């Protein structure tokens, strides 16, 4: 019924959602402040989703502001640039803002204070081929600034037949505490609108809709003013405040009524979503040749002067806290992101990256430790709250008991880890932690399976090769042996023939040769021989007679 009522305004309601306390006012009282350049910048190579970029500098190199430090490698990857001019001090593993708390490869840059730019070239994007523009975006280092940090050029890939009819600009910013997009819309609405024009041109979208939650009336008003001056038609939709309306698929549902099927991408249904900060970064890259070098970060929670800061990437979180007047006593935890989806930082020394939208200094009174988890009572409140219409209680059972195949069947991977289920759970079960555990186990098992398949293929190939070599060798031997035999056969025949010939000759000779001392004798001698033979015969007879 509520959705029907909302339909009068042309908006739709997604399933579930929660209303956590907003805590946004603390950080929206001051304008965006620019932070002074810190003494060192630590630039992790892993600031985005995808492959690590390839390092293009060496320790000791002098680099200029905007110079490429690492270039995108493979299709899903993003470049990293120098946020200011300076010297590359080291390329080594350092702590990065990641839930693992593990170190990863980083480039440390010591600014020289001159802030000298590399030669920048702006592009007249309205008169440039889309393919060329998107290809050049690969060198911009621009990634999704909403927190997911997905390389933007992938989302813009116009292969000549872009089927996107609706471009949605995400200014919902539904997570509590975070106000960086709010302040950006209030102060830089014109730049956002120019960015929307660029994105609209690149995608060829017919409709452009900016979605802003109704808890940001100033931002919505600023966007309306800026949109009115634009050459293209940009609608600004004020959507009801309901966490997680800032999730891309939820926002698509709210403003268009389209539910993107779980196995499809939003572009398959003709919709693409960009964060307000992302389109601004794209605009600045084309218009001024500025790659992604800084972003707006909300610093709030248990700090003296909460607010928003324009921060060069690589600035340490501790430097950022100082800029916000320092953290108040009692700060026991630093959270990156919002209280619903963020994670605790391993140290205040970690740098700000492209995905850092908010730093919250946590104190026990702001984030009391969760009460101990109690058994699930199957109340199904989580199912009511789930914006993806999953069955969180079932997923919980399957994840808890390592029944991963079943969890996958129940669409575990559609879970956006928004935390609504954990938020409403009366037993305080950390449900999302179980889902994350199950997801990473399944992904690891899939990787192991792939490695096993590769190993099987290579082993089969090796066995086949050994077999082939054996046969080849056998064939070679056989050929050699056969040849020898054949040769030997030829020899034998010849030998036999020779022997036969020799024997024949010998026989012939034998036949020819007769005793010669009795042939050519004179008649007298022959007679004498005959007499002797006769006498010998007589003697032999007498002997026999006797």
């Amino acid at each position, binding site marked *: 019924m509520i959705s029907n009522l909302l339909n009068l305004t042309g908006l739709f309601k997604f399933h579930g959602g929660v209303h956590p306390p907003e805590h946004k006012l603390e950080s929206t009282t001051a304008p965006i402040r620019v932070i002074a350049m810190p003494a060192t910048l630590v630039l992790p190579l*892993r600031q985005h989703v995808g492959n690590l970029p390839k390092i293009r500098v060496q320790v000791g190199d002098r680099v200029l502001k905007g110079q490429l430090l690492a270039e995108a490698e493979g299709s899903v990857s993003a470049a990293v640039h120098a946020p200011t001019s300076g010297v590359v001090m080291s390329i080594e593993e350092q702590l*990065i803002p*990641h*839930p*693992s708390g*593990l*170190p*990863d490869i980083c480039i440390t840059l010591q600014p020289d204070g001159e802030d000298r730019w590399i030669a920048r070239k702006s592009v007249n994007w309205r008169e440039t081929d889309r393919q060329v523009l998107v290809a050049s975006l690969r060198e911009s280092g621009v990634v999704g600034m909403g927190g997911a940090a997905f390389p933007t050029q992938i989302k813009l890939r116009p292969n000549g037949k872009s089927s996107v009819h609706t471009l949605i600009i995400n200014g919902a910013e539904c997570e509590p505490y975070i106000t960086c997009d709010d302040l950006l819309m209030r102060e830089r609405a014109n730049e956002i609108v120019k960015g929307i024009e660029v994105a609209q041109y690149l995608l060829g979208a017919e409709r452009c809709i900016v979605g802003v939650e109704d808890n940001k009336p100033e931002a919505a008003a600023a966007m309306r003013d800026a949109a009115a001056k634009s050459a293209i038609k940009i609608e600004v939709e004020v959507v009801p405040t309901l966490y997680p309306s800032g999730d891309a698929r939820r926002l698509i549902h709210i403003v268009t009524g389209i539910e993107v099927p779980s196995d499809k991408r939003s572009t398959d249904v003709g919709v693409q979503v960009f964060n307000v900060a992302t389109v601004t970064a794209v605009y600045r890259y084309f218009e001024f040749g500025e790659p992604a070098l800084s972003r707006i970060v909300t610093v709030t929670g248990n700090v003296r002067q909460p607010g928003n800061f324009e921060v060069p990437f690589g600035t340490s979180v501790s430097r950022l806290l100082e800029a916000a007047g320092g953290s108040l006593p009692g700060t026991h935890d630093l959270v990156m992101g919002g209280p619903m989806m963020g994670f605790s930082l391993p140290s205040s020394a970690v740098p700000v990256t492209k995905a850092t939208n908010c730093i919250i200094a946590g104190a026990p009174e702001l984030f009391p*430790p969760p009460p*101990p*988890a109690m058994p699930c009572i199957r109340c199904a409140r989580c199912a009511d709250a789930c914006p993806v219409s999953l069955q969180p209680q079932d997923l919980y059972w399957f994840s808890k008991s390592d029944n991963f195949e079943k969890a996958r069947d129940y669409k575990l991977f559609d879970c956006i880890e928004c935390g609504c289920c954990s938020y409403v759970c009366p037993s305080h079960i*950390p449900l999302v*932690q*179980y889902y*994350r*555990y199950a*997801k*990473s*186990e399944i992904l*690891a098992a899939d*990787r*192991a399976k792939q*490695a*096993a*398949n*590769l*190993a*099987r293929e*290579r*082993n089969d*190939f*090796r*066995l086949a090769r050994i077999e082939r070599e054996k046969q080849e060798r056998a064939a070679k031997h056989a050929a050699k042996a056969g040849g020898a035999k054949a040769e030997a056969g030829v020899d034998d025949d010849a030998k036999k023939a020779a022997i036969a010939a020799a024997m024949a000759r010998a026989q012939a000779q034998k036949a020819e040769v007769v005793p010669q001392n009795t042939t050519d004798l004179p008649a007298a001698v022959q007679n004498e021989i005959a007499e002797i033979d006769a006498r010998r015969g007589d003697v032999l007879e007498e002997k026999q007679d006797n």
Partner: protein
Amino acid sequence: MLIALLVMIGLALLLGIVLGYSALKFKVEGDPLVDKIDAILPQTQCGQCGYPGCKPYATAIANGEADINQCPPGGEPGMLALADLLGVEPKPLNAEHGLPKPKAVAFIDENTCIGCTLCIQACPVDAILGAAKQMHTIIASECTGCELCLAPCPVDCITMEVIPEKVGNWKWRYPVIEIKTVDEMKAA
């Protein structure tokens, strides 16, 4: 009576022809059970099971010659999956064939390697690159950690390096909920 008999004989003949035809038409090449078992085995090709590779072990299991608990790299989950597939009782891994170890890859100390190619001949997945009297090296991404290259090396220059946990292969942990005594709870 006669009609019934004829009908039954006719049916029997017809079905016999259909069955005979489908036996020829849909003949399954190879042994599907061996392939199913082979799909579960980790393809380390280490031979710890006593057979010269995963496929021979799979064949032996299918023929009832080998037990399901002889594969240390597959570990407990592998054994359970085999038990599930074959419908037999799970049993603990047989320690005679070795115990599961953390996944490792071979590493050649290139200063010590003399280029004898013995390890190349031993590698079941062709993951070692080199030639006679040339230095050898392991293609780490292809190495299954079978340790078959260790024994033939005459200069013992190959070691097994356990794959460290990095950001790229890090996994979320199973949620552990601290148990506190009532006194601790009250104090907090």
